[in-house]
């Protein structure tokens, strides 16, 4: 993950874009995360006969190579499906700018190198307005915590942990195991009896009927 992301802005001036709209449940039955980009915003992008709807922004040729999606409030609320993030990244979206994000979606984005940047309403509206003709380039500078567009620089806030993870690209699991395994083991030794009750035996009986 680079320190800077630069790309054409795609305006999606909507509040409450939920993860069911980002990727409908029918595509959650696939067993892989690759190739989901073609299902991104499926029901907004295609009609019942799977023809592209001309009034949806992703079908507008001016935004074809866009990689910075700009939406309004509560982007990614709803289901925990990480497929929503995979669909965005597989399509080629590298950053989402919005006023706020659903918590689980936001957490998922960090694990997949998708930069989710929170900006105030006024700035978001300004970017959306300027992006409408398809000629706005936006840069997300993670190192300096700035969004740059149309000769302007706007600072944003982001959790240090999230910023580090976005820039490092290292496996979080390997990181946890190499730094904290001893602490995990120590915690397990001190768990209260009811917390660590050996469930396996009772469960086995239940499962076997």
């Amino acid at each position: 993950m680079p320190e800077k992301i630069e790309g054409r802005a795609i305006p999606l001036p909507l509040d409450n874009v939920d993860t069911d709209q980002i990727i409908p449940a029918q595509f959650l039955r696939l067993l892989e995360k690759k190739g989901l980009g073609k299902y991104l915003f499926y029901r907004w992008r295609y009609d019942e006969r799977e023809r592209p709807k001309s009034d949806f922004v992703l079908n507008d040729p001016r935004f074809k190579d866009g990689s910075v999606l700009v939406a309004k409030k509560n982007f990614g609320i709803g289901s925990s499906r990480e497929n929503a993030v995979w669909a965005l990244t597989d399509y080629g979206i590298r950053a989402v700018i919005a006023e706020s994000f659903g918590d689980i979606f936001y957490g998922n984005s960090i694990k997949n190198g998708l930069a989710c940047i929170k900006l105030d309403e006024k700035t978001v509206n300004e970017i959306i307005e300027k992006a409408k003709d398809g000629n706005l380039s936006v840069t997300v500078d993670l190192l300096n915590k700035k969004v740059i567009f149309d000769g302007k620089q706007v600072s944003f806030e982001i959790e240090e942990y999230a910023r580090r993870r976005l820039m490092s690209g290292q496996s979080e699991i390997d990181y946890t195991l190499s730094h904290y395994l001893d602490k995990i083991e120590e915690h397990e030794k001190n768990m209260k009896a009811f917390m660590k009750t050996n469930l396996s035996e009772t469960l086995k009986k239940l499962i076997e009927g």
Partner: protein
Amino acid sequence: MPYTITDKIWQSHEIAREDEFSLLYIDRHLTHEVTSPVAFSDMRQRGYRVRRPDLSLAVMDHNVPTDSKENPTMDDLSKKQMDALWDNSKTFNVPLLDFYSPYQGIIHVIGPELGFSLPGLTIAAGDSHTSTHGALGSVAFGIGTSEVEHVFVTQTLWIKKPKQFRIKINGKTRKGVSAKDLALYIIGKIGTGGGIGHIIEYSGETVSDMEVEGRMTLCNMSIEAGARSAIIEPDEKVFSYVKDAPLAPKGQEWEEAVDYWKSLKSDPNARYDKELEVDASSIKPMVTWGTNPSMVARVDGNVPDPSEIKDQTLKDEYERALKYMGLKPGQKITDINVDYVFIGSCTNARLSDLIEAAKVLKGKKVSKNVKALAVPGSEWVKRKAERMGLHRIYIDAGFEWRHSGCSMCIAMNSDRLPPGKRSASTSNRNFENRQGPGGRTHLVSPAMAAAAAVYGHFVDLADVDIAEVL
């Protein structure tokens, strides 16, 4: 320093901290067939194992057929996903309640029902409605697939401690007003983003008086207000709810556990980042009219008229929603006819939910224009209901009495709302296309759904006969 229940559970599970994020130990991990396959295949590739299979439990729920166990309607993709969970549970030694298990059910119904979820624990599951388990007095998080893998391998989660939002609910509820109505009312008030970044702690006399399953509905729906999770202090009602569950601690361990659980109260002067007080006595049964759960009205109210709204974004959003829903501005809620009724989901398919709906259905018939489905939250709930004879009430009224699963809440199996059709649904999301492409969803309580099934349109429960079924 005074602490909240969330602080207390957090402190006893935080292993490390890096800036704003905590490394939190997870006591119980639930998993299902939809959000786990990518985690398991990555684990295979990288040679990881499940650290604590004994603290993990897998169940098939999202795309299981509900029509039959012998001759189920199942498509290839669903079958592949269920087979994958079966293989993965064998390879990684994770206990699995499969499609045929007598204890199979919706992940957030079986966790508390089996005593896998208990007070004072940290709980995680690859499903947004994991906040449900907070009703027992636990800190419970819905997580994504990368996090599912992280929990499997390390039994921990990197997570920012949520801010804390206390919602106090006082007052006696009116006839026909349930936990679902309170939840919808609150979401209508604070919006779909009102809880973002927060864990909601519910308290007040209405919550203390509420049975545990109603509290689960309240905590379950908190995610629809954007909350990271929800929690309620455990009390005697919770202790007796979990006491006889198969996986609950027994004997001396039980006594010690209850002593500890009693200490999990929020201290009187504990600080909250946000507070709200709700007067339950003023609330009527609620019906959503739009395409997210905050678009909600009282049953004796009307669909809003976008032309009266000044804020342009909101106006556009309302117009878009009414168009999708096929409703007229200002239309009376009780004038909305329904084609389908769905009683089910992790929100409202526990025994008490089935009882509440049965009280309305007893001795009545489903309207001839309505197709009605009752899908118990677990196979065990189904057996308990059948022992009470509830299935007879449903079947005699004209409902289909199904096997358990997520069913028409998410429409991943063959239970779908057809295009343009309108449902009264006890589930949690009225998003566009949620119950099936082009389907129109109205979220309501189980008793409201039952009444809509009988009358063919929404009715105020104040005007409906409610029978005793016990």
